């Protein structure tokens, strides 16, 4: 395949997200400006100007009208996707790391980093249909995990919130009361910081990637470990194909170690694994730096990867990808 290279960001990429229809791709990077691209040919549509810090993650509403972004400048902003206008700003006491719309886009879960005396926290905010009626107040604030919470997402039917972070433990919280419902088993769980988490298309299972060079597949309701995928590199980003039983892991070494070792151009790869057999299917090389973000198009026929090199690479699969057999 011929990947489409999009160099819109000056700094490393942090997050990629497709909209529900699969025609728009939102990219967040450390350069303060989330960007939206057309997902078929990679043409840039626009940028959202307003943040003063690295943008760590974003989410888009199902109708592709609203974008929510979480940034290191301690704010979470709501944007009009079409015009790029800022609709609302939530202020926090510490950098915001992960944002996720609920099913129905009425609520959003936001995590904030530990900062000075503040511990990390998970906030649930109500999102008003009309941005002028938006309020700052939180529906729920959950505190408890030590260290950064790298990702928090809604569970099935918005009843639960799944969080994962630096303490390597996945937790499931009740979204109404904030009570801790389940914790992942320490023996079989990750051993190092969990960097990324992605849900399956139907929400029944999710995949976490960690710096311990593995990714694990979990059941959302019972939090039992289903599968483990082992790589040679710390995992920074994970994605699951909505069409085939494939998982993709992206990672790399620490940036400081990169220059001291063999630096053949474009050797950082996104590794494909068979979801059920846990075996490696192959890798797609091309990035010049560790891969920090991965996303599959909801139609499963293309995927994109964002790297430390500032490039977003959009890959449309060749027909023989769909015929791969182990």
């Amino acid at each position, binding site marked *: 395949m*011929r990947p489409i290279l999009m160099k819109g960001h000056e700094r490393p990429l942090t997050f990629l997200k497709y909209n529900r*229809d699969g*025609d728009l791709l939102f990219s967040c990077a450390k350069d303060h400006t989330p*960007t939206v691209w057309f997902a078929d040919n990679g043409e*840039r*549509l626009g940028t959202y100007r307003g943040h003063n810090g690295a943008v760590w993650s974003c989410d888009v509403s199902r109708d592709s009208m609203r974008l929510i972004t979480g940034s290191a400048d301690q704010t979470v902003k709501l944007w009009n996707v079409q015009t790029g206008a800022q609709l609302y700003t939530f202020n926090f006491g510490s950098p915001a790391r992960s944002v996720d719309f609920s099913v129905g886009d009425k609520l959003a879960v936001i995590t904030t980093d530990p900062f000075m005396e503040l511990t990390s926290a998970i906030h649930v905010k109500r999102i008003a249909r009309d941005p002028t009626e938006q309020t700052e107040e939180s529906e729920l604030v959950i505190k408890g995990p030590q260290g950064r919470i790298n990702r928090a997402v809604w569970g099935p039917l918005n009843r639960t919130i799944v969080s994962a972070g630096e303490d390597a433990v996945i937790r499931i919280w009740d979204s109404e009361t904030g009570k801790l419902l389940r914790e992942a088993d320490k023996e079989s769980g990750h051993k190092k910081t969990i960097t990324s988490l992605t849900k399956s298309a139907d929400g029944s299972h999710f995949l976490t990637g960690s710096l311990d060079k593995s990714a694990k597949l979990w059941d959302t309701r019972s939090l039992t470990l289903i599968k483990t995928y082992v790589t040679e590199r710390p995992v920074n980003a994970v994605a699951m194909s909505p069409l085939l039983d494939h998982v993709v892991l992206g990672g790399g070494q620490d940036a400081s170690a990169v220059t*001291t070792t063999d630096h053949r151009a474009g050797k950082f790869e996104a590794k494909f694994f068979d979801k059920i057999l846990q075996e490696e299917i192959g890798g797609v090389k*091309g990035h010049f730096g560790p891969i920090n973000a991965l996303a599959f198009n909801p139609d499963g026929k293309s995927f994109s990867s964002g790297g430390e090199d500032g490039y977003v690479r959009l890959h*449309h699969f060749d027909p023989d990808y769909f015929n791969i057999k182990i």
Partner: protein
Amino acid sequence: MYGVVHFTTGSLNMPIDKSDPNPNQSKASKFRWGELEEDDNLDFLLPPKEVIGTDENGIKKVIEYKFNDEGNKVKITTTTRVRKLAKARLNRRAVERRNWEKFGDAVHEYVGSRLTMVSTEEIILERPRAPGMKAEEIKVPGDSLAQLSKGGAVLMVCRTCGKKGDHWTSKCPYKDLAAPVETFVDKPVASEASVAASGSGKGAYGPPSMRAGAERTAGSDMRRRNDENSVRVTNLSEDTREPDLLELFRPFGAVTRVYVAMDQKTGTSRGFGFVNFVNREDAQRAINKLNGYGYDNLILRVKWATPRAN
């Protein structure tokens, strides 16, 4: 009778066959030398542009004729491959979004902005190699060594378990019995040096050559680096010459220089020589594989050229 200016045919592509002047003749008669200025547009004399549309491989040819700077008629054939970008079947809303106006930094986008480019390289989903083969091994040394082994009586000595004739050291099934001698030639030295740097605190800056796992090749220029990657070969047979060493060591990587010490009086080899590699890793692999290798009835000794080896 033409009454027409004769053009010498151009340098590009095919020469124009001038033997059919009839189409031009009617135009030619209106055409007078005296009235002609240097840069008059003589395009009407040229055959029209042809477009041979996209064939089944996606190749499109456009044949144009023009005048080059010397006034020669030239035929220019442009061959392009037309690639179809994957088109998603978009729903109604997506089609509407396609027509949205650009905003933010994209407002002033100009056509040549090159923010979005199709990769020039074809990237494939590389399947992993079959189990039993190391990913780092290049196929070539494996193949040529296999060929060499078929040639004569070769002893496959494994240094880990001492078993002969079964497997090479790197494929030793008993690898955990003895720790590898030197996985990274530089590591012992580099790690001592980097203790100070890493000891000062996680996240403290250490220059690349002092970081853990750093290879010491940083900083030397090409020539000196070659001499650092010099390998000494001893216990060579009398008739071994430079080309033999080159043939033996080349499968491991690029070799810049081979030298065999010769006895001037007898014209035979003095039994030793040197091979300079471009890459240190290739030299290391050559040492690993060929030390103890049987060549021309003698067991070769291959090691780093200077005991320093860094």
